[in-house]
């Protein structure tokens, strides 16, 4: 019987390196999707990853393309320098919620508002993963963190921050979407969004951000399966999935 190839690993990740992500973590899926769509776009040899500081750092040995490690929170500033100087490169930042929405909020908002022509992949897991489960700007009310041992309280910490909603107050950004990779359907959707975010860059349309709401079983203190339930029941409630800005659609 003739063999038919149904799956091939993307060239966007190293062929023989095992990722260091925890069981139940969704970083790996997102890395795979980035590799796949950029391969489809025929741009792997132009791809430059500007990496935030956090668990995303575990991806640096895992991807097969150029990597620039930015200081914590500064990925959007670094990517500004990279893309402005090398417009032919396909540039993306890969950042967690602490990186992008706390220490780097200024860099994120300002790059979005300038309409910098790069792609942002934003992993929102509601917690500081790398440093061991401290409270993030996206931590849910009542959710425990090592620096909010009694749970996040509105009176003390305010409400979780919504990045897509916040950025959609700006006129400049091209594409802002919140998505997930918890089901095959969502993976397919996310793949489409990531592709659009890169295509926008190729077309010179400006700032595109894909927020992926993910789980962090390790720091949430759940099994991978419990974390999935929490993700769907609690995280998606606070962070509704959907397209927050798509200038192409608005103009059509």
């Amino acid at each position, binding site marked *: 019987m003739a063999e038919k190839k149904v799956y091939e690993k993307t*060239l*966007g990740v*190293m*062929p023989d390196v095992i990722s260091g992500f925890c069981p139940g973590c969704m970083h790996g899926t997102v890395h795979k999707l980035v590799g796949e769509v950029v391969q489809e776009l025929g*741009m*792997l*040899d*132009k*791809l*430059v990853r*500007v990496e935030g500081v956090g668990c995303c750092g575990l991806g*640096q040995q895992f*991807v*097969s*393309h*150029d*990597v*620039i*490690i*930015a*200081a914590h929170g*500064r990925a959007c*500033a*670094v*990517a*500004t*320098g*990279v893309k*402005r*100087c*090398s417009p*032919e*490169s*396909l540039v993306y930042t890969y950042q967690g919620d602490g990186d992008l929405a706390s220490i780097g909020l*200024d*860099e994120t908002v*300002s790059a979005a508002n300038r309409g910098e022509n790069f792609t942002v992949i934003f992993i929102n897991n509601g917690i500081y993963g790398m440093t061991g489960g401290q409270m993030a700007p996206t931590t849910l009310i009542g959710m425990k963190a090592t620096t909010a041992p009694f749970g996040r309280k509105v009176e003390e910490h305010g409400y979780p921050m919504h990045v897509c909603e916040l950025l959609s107050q700006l006129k400049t950004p091209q594409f802002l979407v919140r998505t997930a990779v918890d089901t095959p359907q969502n993976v397919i959707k996310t793949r489409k969004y990531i592709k659009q975010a890169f295509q926008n860059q190729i077309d010179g349309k400006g700032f595109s951000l894909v927020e992926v709401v993910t789980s962090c079983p390790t720091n949430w203190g759940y099994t991978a399966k419990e974390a999935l339930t929490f993700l769907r029941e609690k995280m998606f409630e606070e962070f509704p999935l959907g397209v927050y800005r798509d200038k192409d659609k608005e103009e059509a």
Partner: protein
Amino acid sequence: MAERVFMKGCEAIAEAGVRAGCRFFAGYPITPQNEIPEYFARRMPEVGGVFVQGESEVASVNMLYGAAATGTPAMSSSSSCGISLYSEGVSYCASARLPVVYVNVQRGGPGIGAIQPAQQDYLQATKASGNGGFRMIVLAPATVQECVDMVYEAFELAQRDNNPVLVLTDGVIGTMMEPVVLPPMKTDEDIKAMKAKFADKACTGHEPCKQHFCFPGSVGTGQEIANKEAEKMYATWDKDVRVEKYLTDDAEIIFAAYGISARISRAVVKQLRAEGIKAGMIRPITVSPFPYEAFSSLDFNQVKGILDVEMSIPAQMRWDIDHAVQGRCPINECRRSGGQLLTNDQVLEGARQLIKEVL
């Protein structure tokens, strides 16, 4: 023929940067160096370069890091409290071995301090411009011409070592006008050659699995190896030490001063010489690496005293002079700070006091 023009320090710094091949500038407004970003904003479009007004100094210096990672000759500038915010990005550039140039047009401090000129960032500039114990070549111009020459040279040094270079000047030199001879404009070919030199490190996209990395740190034993590599580079800087010795051969009184303070000191040395007093001056031109030898090799049977002249209270360069002199002659200080300028009279008075004590 070389071009001779009348220019303000800050604008001359910017034009020298452009001529040295700088094709990316990011910065944030702060007095007294606003003319640098303003000049780049006008000038960069003419040469196909990029100017970005960063949302902060933190962002600007990190943009510089990104630009340099592509192999693009890049520079930035700020002043004192803004330079504090550069610590992060400069340390990252040093760690990732990126060739960037930046300028500190010093003003009073600490804190927001004063917008007027000062020399209060000496120790920060020469000893620890960020975390991790990295070093940089720090050039200290005393004229607008030197600003031009040093910015031009800073690009060569940065690219030679793949390390940041700082030009340390102040609000007097940055805002005064003087005639300058401008260096030749680097051609597109020259800039291509600069980029080619960095091509084996540049992160602009490569074939899968042949990727380039820009890592400002390392895991395992990698970081210590990187530290040792950097140390080897610092050890080659003996040849880069530059110092001006003005009338020191028979001098009994030595002024020690850099930048604007050296200009004032020079006038006073001349005045004292006219009175028959054997005065001279040692002017560090590179404040890092510091010209220790110029001080340590003095004949202390002849030299009776040193007057350290700085616009900083407490004095800062004094530490380096002490380190070289090792108590072999008295060192007095003549200082102002917080944006107050030294005057000739004040330096003269400081000199007379020293003369009274030691001659």
